[in-house]
């Protein structure tokens, strides 16, 4: 049947995807040295993936996504300190807490222009930042949350100085959540999100309940961001106010735009490009790397990420979803 065949083609795994993940896992076997950076990349990739779910798939732009990242980080940190050092339950708790915050604040971003949403999300993150600063008994205030001793992974593997355990943990979490996201964007729910992003009026004329879908995806995205925050808290055994900082929201937005919105690998590619570039530039020019980074962004925008990436993307889009 042609229709069924067409459908099954939509979600099929392509070779480059498989290669990508094999490489990511193979990096675990590298000699120690780069796993710490890889861990940071995996966390930023997950964070960017979470932003892509709302920006690329549902059209909600956010300049305050750190609200959920930070909430997840603090939730994981406090849970580790107060309840149990086991990382897995901590991760689960962080996801639930961030998702709850996402559900609660989703009502604020249901309508409005890009500018409105930009400002509302930004304001939510800033409020949380101030709240965290105002509760030093809980969060440690500006000194950061200390005294986290994260338990071993699966009860066996300690988070060591080399960061290999950390990278393995973050990568597996990223991979599992990526699989879930991949499943979701190819589901009827994902399809309806794409319709809402393109034209909300039209989507509702097809019977799509825009509000509940947006609430659902915003909550989901918050959960993902919370997971990323929890990974950061657990692999660094430390949470500071910077997890809620404006800079963090801006960075993840930059990374996602660099990689391209609306395809799941955009956040991943962007995170790799952004972090590697930052690492290389700031190692070679600690005082002046911002200039080169800025130049890169300007050129990227002027040449047009579309045009620049069209060759590459066109090729990839054929083989990746």
């Amino acid at each position, binding site marked *: 049947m042609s229709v069924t065949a067409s459908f099954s083609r939509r979600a099929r795994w392509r070779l480059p995807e498989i290669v990508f993940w094999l490489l990511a896992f193979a990096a675990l076997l590298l000699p120690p040295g780069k796993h710490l950076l890889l861990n940071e990349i995996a966390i930023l990739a997950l964070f960017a993936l979470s932003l892509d779910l709302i920006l690329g798939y549902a059209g909600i*732009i956010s300049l305050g996504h750190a609200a959920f990242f930070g909430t997840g980080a603090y939730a994981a940190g406090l849970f580790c300190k107060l309840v149990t050092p086991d990382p897995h339950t901590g991760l689960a708790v962080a996801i639930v807490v961030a998702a709850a915050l996402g559900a609660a604040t989703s009502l*604020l971003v249901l*309508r*409005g*222009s*890009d*500018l*409105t949403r*930009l*400002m*509302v999300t*930004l*304001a*939510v993150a*800033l*409020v949380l930042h*101030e*709240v965290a*600063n*105002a509760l030093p008994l809980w969060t440690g205030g500006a000194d950061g949350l200390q005294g986290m001793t994260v338990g071993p992974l699966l009860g066996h593997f300690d988070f060591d100085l080399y960061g290999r355990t950390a990278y393995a943990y973050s990568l597996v979490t990223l991979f599992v959540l990526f699989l879930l996201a991949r499943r979701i964007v190819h589901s009827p729910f994902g399809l309806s999100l794409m319709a809402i992003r393109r034209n909300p009026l039209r989507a509702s004329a097809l019977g799509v309940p825009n509000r509940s879908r947006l609430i659902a995806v915003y909550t989901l995205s918050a959960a993902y961001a919370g997971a990323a925050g929890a990974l950061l808290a657990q692999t660094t055994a430390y949470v500071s106010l910077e997890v809620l900082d*404006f800079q963090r929201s*801006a960075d993840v*937005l*930059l990374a996602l*735009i*660099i990689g391209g*919105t609306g395809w799941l690998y955009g956040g991943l590619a962007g995170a790799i490009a952004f972090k590697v570039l930052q690492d290389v530039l700031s190692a070679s020019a600690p*005082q*002046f*790397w*911002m*200039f080169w*980074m*800025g*130049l*890169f*962004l*300007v*050129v*990227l*925008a*002027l040449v*047009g*990420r579309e045009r620049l990436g069209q060759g590459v993307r066109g090729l990839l889009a054929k083989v990746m979803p």
Partner: protein
Amino acid sequence: MATILFDGVAYGMLMFILACGLAVTLGLMNFVNLAHGAFAMAGGYVTVTLMDRWGVPFLACLPAAFVASAALGLVLERTLYRHLYGRDHLEQVLFSIGLVFIAVATTDYFMGSSQRNITLPSWLQGRREILGVSVGLYRSFLIVVCGALALGLQLGLTRTRFGSRLRAAVDDARVARGLGIPVGLVFAATFAVGSGLAGLGGALGVELLGLDPYFPMKFLIYFLIVVAVGGTSGIMGPFLAALLLGIADVAGKYYLSSALGGFVIYLVLIVVLVLRPHGLFARAR
């Protein structure tokens, strides 16, 4: 009480001058220019350098700051910005953040990363009793200058040929071109004036806000708040929003404890935007 109100008004007026260029580019030209603060910073550094190095009097620095920033705006508009009109908002974000990075790094390289200060002329220092209220002379100066500028802008936008051309160009660039309006030039001139005003605001703000290479990032949030709350349909909305922001900020910090005072302004922002997604003073659509 009156003093607090007065302080807030002065602060708000300054914010308006700094942000009104953004209201025009974002609101009228639909361009997300997150690098707006860089032009303000340019004006600030022009002033500091002129005063420090060549002893130019403060008043003479203000027009210089305007002209320098406007020229910078014009050059960048003609060479870079215009290629991004009508492009995706996200690409504009990418571009303008990149520009901020470049501006910050370059300024840091040439001007150093420390805070810079100016010394006001003595006739602008100190306080006076006016109608029983003790007011700062510099803040009074700010209110007079910025108030006059706001009035001038409003008249310029509504009463002059240039204003009507701009509005036509913004409404529908194609139709405007058909009517013989040089749309590209109108946009460039508008952009330059907006940048110039930001530069002037930067010069006026050194005394109150300080000046360092990270100025464009530090105050971006405030500029965006002014534009978002004010709505993007003209100049008066952002003007009122800036006043409101100034008064709310100052009064919030005065009457509430620090912990609350810090985020009262953001809560107000959320409430306003949820109730009026297009801004407090936007015309209903």
